[in-house]
């Protein structure tokens, strides 16, 4: 630190008064600035604070939206009776199964479509059409085909998940620099080695972005399929609460969906930071 103070003592008074400016220069000038500790939670905390304040002052009617503390106590009761865990387990299983199958399907299709001309000709078109059709619109058909059981629910989630994974992985794969392909040829990589050492890591940024969409998409699809016809799950619990007019249980379900979606997205972002440690980007 002594080395820092010496030039400052020598500097002109004008420069001294600009100490704040000099300090800010520690980060990139055109970057978004210094990272805020716990930054990801700040917006959420503000939202909860607004909610609590509104409920306490009566600005938000208890019949419209239960107060945060009511939601917390209701959640406590639901956990005590075991209803919440039970329904959450069912929901999580559906979402995870659909998510996993969707990721595998999306990645495989992206690889086949990105690495072979035949695959691209056969796969890309149908996927783009599927992309234009919302999963919701497919639901009547899926119910006719697969019934109202678990299969229909998992397939609906899968269909919502595989599209973003496919789109982003395919894009990441197709935009791998041709120079690396040339390099792979000169060092004599086999096709499999090329996929493993160049294609997959090169497409990883795209894949992880697709994964972020996919994870939140899985929870969204879950809401839809659980409220349409279910005998268990968070959506079912909320649907039941609606018929009895239990706003607080509905809000518990909503908060749960939010927490799950936000949590899983944060998880993917963590994975993203770890897996893409080699990148130098604006955010660094």
């Amino acid at each position, binding site marked *: 630190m002594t080395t820092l103070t010496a030039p400052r003592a020598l500097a002109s008074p004008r420069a001294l008064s600009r100490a704040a400016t000099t300090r800010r220069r520690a980060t990139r000038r055109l970057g978004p600035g210094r990272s805020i500790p716990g930054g990801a939670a700040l917006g959420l905390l503000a939202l909860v604070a607004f909610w609590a304040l509104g409920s306490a002052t009566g600005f938000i009617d208890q019949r419209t939206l239960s107060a945060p503390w009511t939601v917390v106590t209701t959640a406590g009761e639901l956990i005590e009776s075991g209803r919440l865990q039970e329904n959450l387990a069912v929901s999580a299983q559906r979402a995870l199964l659909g998510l996993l199958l969707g990721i595998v399907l999306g990645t495989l299709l992206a690889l086949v479509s990105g690495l072979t001309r035949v695959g691209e000709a056969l796969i890309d078109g149908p996927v783009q059409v599927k992309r234009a059709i919302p999963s919701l619109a497919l639901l009547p058909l899926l119910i006719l085909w697969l019934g109202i059981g678990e299969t229909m629910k998992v397939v609906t989630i899968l269909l919502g998940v595989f599209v973003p994974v496919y789109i982003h992985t395919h894009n990441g794969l197709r935009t791998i620099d041709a120079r690396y392909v040339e*390099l792979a040829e*000169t060092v004599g990589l086999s096709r499999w080695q090329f996929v493993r*050492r160049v294609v997959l*890591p090169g497409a990883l940024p795209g894949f992880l972005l697709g994964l972020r969409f996919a994870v939140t998409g899985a929870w969204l699809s879950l809401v839809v399929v659980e409220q349409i016809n279910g005998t268990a799950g968070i959506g079912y619990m909320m649907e039941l609460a609606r018929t009895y007019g239990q706003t607080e249980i509905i809000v518990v379900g909503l908060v749960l969906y939010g927490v799950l979606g936000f949590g899983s997205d944060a998880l993917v972002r963590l994975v993203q930071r770890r897996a893409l440690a*080699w990148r130098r980007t604006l955010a660094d």
Partner: protein
Amino acid sequence: MATHARGLTRAPGIPAPPDASEHAPAHADGTPAPAGPAAPAHADGRTPERSAVPPPAHGALADERTTTTDGSVVVRHLDRAYGLAEGDGRVLRDLDLTIAPGEFVAILGRSGSGKSTLLRALAGLDHDVHGTGTVAVPERVSVVFQDSRLLPWARVLDNVTLGLRGPQARALGRERLAEVGLAGRERAWPTELSGGEQQRVSLARSLVREPQLLLADEPFGALDALTRLRMHGLLRDLCARHRPAVLLVTHDVDEAIVLAERVVVLDEGRIALDVPVALDDGPRDPADPRFAALRALLLGALGALGTLTPTHPVADPRSTR
């Protein structure tokens, strides 16, 4: 790379000759067609019309590629054409070149003279070019590009051992990294290295394969002068130790003289000059009169003396670079 990219977009603009067969039609200029079915004739001196371009409509490469066992390079009647290049589109014209095992050859030439095209032909990287000829290269060929071309998502050692198998690959990779002075940086990401260090990793990656032929396409072109001098010394030492045949493409006359045993000057796709560097082994002194004489000869062959200073004698040939 620019010419190469042009080769890709060539097809729509160029009307194919009515009888566009797979091979170039032989010109009736009297010279007997050289051996092999795929040898287009010369267009000596004159520049023919664009419609006389040899390439077939689909741009197929009709090379005969063979492998030499003794580590030598033999190129015969090599023709390469990009549809949109100047004149008849040919970048290499009936080029013959032989490189002995372990020989260090530098290729000099102005931009567009075909030196990179020649290197890409030897490396087997020109899929999108028209051309014919016979190319015989050793089995193990390594390429050093102008950019270090390290995979940014692989650590330094993984970049060096890229595509190698077997338990000793990593040990060999470490050894080569130590040889280029990067011991201890095995776990670094390529973006954490300086440009010179990245190029040294790229050298290690080429040498870990024990190449019989090392193809280097202006490998030091993107480096600053001081780093380049150090890299010259490094490359000379490494080549002395591993003894690959080297084809170094460069536009730097001094670099060619300092490093090579033989300098070949390309001009418009032909060999304009092919001279041995009759200087002592080891560090070569630019102040040596033989060095200066060779430089003047090479610059003359490159046309630098004539075109840039038409009336005044050149005091320092380096200024014309």
